[in-house]
């Protein structure tokens, strides 16, 4: 039952990063590449129409995590207190940027909210990557210093960074050179994803240029990926064990590399939706590979005193998990019905669609 909910939450989280990922990416593209007012407007609109229904996936993931793995939820949310609250603020800034840019016709007003939308999207992409980096690297569970624990074994508190900036110290911070690398991977991936989304959903004048941008970003991403595979081994030496034990898990990294290789042919791809599918594969493959390499651990401990948090030692009761399965299935069936209805009515380019007025 724990495994089942682990998979469900994994799917919901991945959905969140695929869906809200494209509007984070759209923000990054908007920040760096949209120059004409007409492009700015339509690109902001391609995120603005969808962001709130995409963010519902985050709420859903949070709720399910709370229900199924309450100890993990409590530990991680209080341990990453500062970065999490900063993420919340960025989410708010991004939302007001999107919602308010079109409300008045003054150039300065639009510029302010465009920047708010773009910069918070960029920082959110970076922070989500850093978060993944932290989960892979592990934290100082129990706040151990010189062999003495400051808290119960499943609690911790991370500083934003420590003086050495290294993931290999006794008490690593949220930001170190390893998590920054993962953060950059996340930024580049989501920028590619966002560019594909803009091309798919709009007729903006920079669509052609964006394909070239995707190509260049993809080269950067390949370099970062190779580099990260090496440092990943240093930070988490056991990361390949699961793949050796259960070779079928290799399917997840293969998804990632299919996306990565496929995107080199971006200029030859005729259908815009195919490019978007490839960047979706990048995200799905990246997240699932990381989860698969850790399984069943969900937060490693960097000290020897306290054991890793796993799906087994943080889960709610068997009864609770199985009853939630019943309503969960009903809920998911309903959800797919909504998505099909929405897809059928809201497909296609959005340039002509009336936004709010």
């Amino acid at each position, binding site marked *: 039952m724990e495994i089942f909910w682990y998979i469900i939450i994994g799917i919901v989280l991945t959905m969140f990063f695929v869906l809200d990922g494209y509007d984070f990416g759209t923000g990054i593209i908007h920040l760096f590449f949209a120059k004409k007012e007409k492009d700015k407007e339509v690109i902001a609109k391609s995120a603005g*129409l*969808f962001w*709130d*229904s995409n*963010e*519902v996936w*985050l*709420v*859903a993931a*949070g*709720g*399910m995590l*709370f*229900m199924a793995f*309450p*100890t993990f*939820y*409590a530990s*991680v*949310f*209080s*341990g990453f*207190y*500062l970065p*999490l*609250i900063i993420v*919340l*603020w960025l*989410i*708010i800034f991004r*939302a*007001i940027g999107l*919602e*308010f840019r079109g*409300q008045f016709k003054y150039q300065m007003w639009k510029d302010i909210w465009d920047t708010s939308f773009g910069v918070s999207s960029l920082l959110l992409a970076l922070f989500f990557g850093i978060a993944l980096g932290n989960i892979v690297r592990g934290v100082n569970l129990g*706040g151990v210093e010189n062999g003495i624990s*400051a*808290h*119960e074994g499943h*609690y*911790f*508190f991370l500083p934003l960074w420590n003086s050495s900036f290294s993931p290999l110290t006794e008490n690593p911070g949220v930001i170190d050179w390893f998590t920054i690398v993962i953060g950059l991977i996340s930024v580049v991936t989501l920028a590619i994803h966002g560019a594909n989304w803009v091309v798919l959903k709009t007729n903006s004048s920079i669509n052609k240029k964006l394909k070239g941008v995707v190509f260049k970003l993809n080269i950067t991403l390949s370099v970062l990926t190779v580099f990260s595979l090496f440092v990943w081994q240093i930070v988490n030496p056991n990361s390949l064990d699961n793949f050796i034990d259960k070779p079928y898990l290799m399917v997840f990294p293969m998804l990632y590399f299919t996306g990565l290789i496929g995107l080199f042919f971006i200029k030859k791809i005729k259908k815009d939706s195919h490019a978007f599918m490839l960047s979706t594969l990048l995200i799905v493959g990246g997240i699932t590979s990381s989860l698969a390499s850790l399984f069943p651990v969900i937060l490693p401990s960097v000290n020897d005193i306290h054991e890793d948090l796993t799906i087994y030692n943080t889960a*709610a*009761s068997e*009864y*609770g998990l199985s*009853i*939630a399965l019943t*309503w*969960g299935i009903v*809920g*998911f069936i*309903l*959800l797919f019905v*909504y998505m099909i*209805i*929405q897809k059928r*009515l*809201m497909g296609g380019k959005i340039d002509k*669609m009336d936004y709010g007025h």
Partner: protein
Amino acid sequence: MEDMIFYDRLQFAFTITFHYIFPQLTMGLSLLIVFLKGKYLLSKIEKYNNAAKFLMKIFAINFTMGVVTGIPMEFQFGTNWAKFSELTGGIIGQTLAMEGMFSFFLESSFLALFIFGEKLMGQKLHFLTGFLVFLGSWASGWFILATNAWMQHPVGYEILENGKFVLENFGALFTNPWLLPAFLHNQMASVVTSSFVVASIGAFYILRNKQVEYGKLFLKTGVIFGLISSVLVAFPTGDWNAKNVAKYQPASFAAMEGIFETEEAGAEIVLVGQPNMVEKKLDNKIAVPNILSFLTHQDWDKQIPGMDQFKEEELPSNIPALYYSYHIMVGLGTIFIGVMVLALFLLWRKKLYNFKPLLWFIMFLVPFPYIANITGWYTAELGRQPYLVYGLLKTSDGISPTVSSGNTLFTLLGFVALYMLLGLLFLVLVGKTINQGPKPQTH
């Protein structure tokens, strides 16, 4: 330690108070939108359709605000109340996760369709999407109230040796005797807010002498829904809730009613008075004898235990705040009924639209249903103190063990600053929408 608890509570109180400005409007407003859209379907008069679509614009702004201020609410269980989350997540995680699953997805999917899809879907489907938005927003209320009901009156649980609450009976979470009265009371209060907002917009249009036909429609709709809901919020739903508090939380009941000393026979009802915590009495009290006993037990002479019957640690931790919250809510609720009765009478005599003093009064009344709603919640939450889970888990045992008070103070100040900006922008947006009005622009 005291600082930590204080800042954690203050941050939660601040963020939830700000957040609840928005859902209390959207829940009630969705009902009015469904009503107007339905009226259009039956009558085919374009005015009703425009009115419904106009209110949906206001709904959408509030929904956005609700989403961005709602995400921090869910996260704060973990960030600031980690121990509480760890111990009770197996139970309240159920209702909170169900809220995401069954209401947010529903609400957000069909809100987009309602706003953008009228031409694509045709009128009947458009009505249906509006109805589904209504259903989603009320389901959200239901699951949140189920969560709160469990904290007020825990049921269906078992406590393990390590202090964890484990779910034993899922169905009990929804048959909790606390839930239905609280839910109905809350939803009616939300209809009060939205009716008053709609009536206020109507009064504004009439007074400004622009788009007067919509002004009249909004005022009439607001007054009719306003009267029905302000009566229902008091009786029977408010009455049920008070009886529940008297039954399950007698110490809180004594505190909110301001009964310091137990009377021999029937208890009086306090209309005015200030709690004096030093002398343990009410200053300048105006009270009517025996009424409270009658209201609570339908028996004029039934004894009701006062605060002197309870030990210090069983009593709510902030008695004056609880007492004032409760009396502000009840006082405002009474005034609302009075105003709406008068307005409906004038509407019936066809004098309302020309009776300017009342129109001005209704227009400026708009903050007060919000205040009544929020003080109502304060009554419930302060009444539950010093517990998070009534009688079982103390508030002081629920906070995050690793988050220092300095961090919480920092984030609290950040939330205050950010929400001030958010509130300002909200007012500008809503003001702009109201200023434009429901009349379709001719291009």
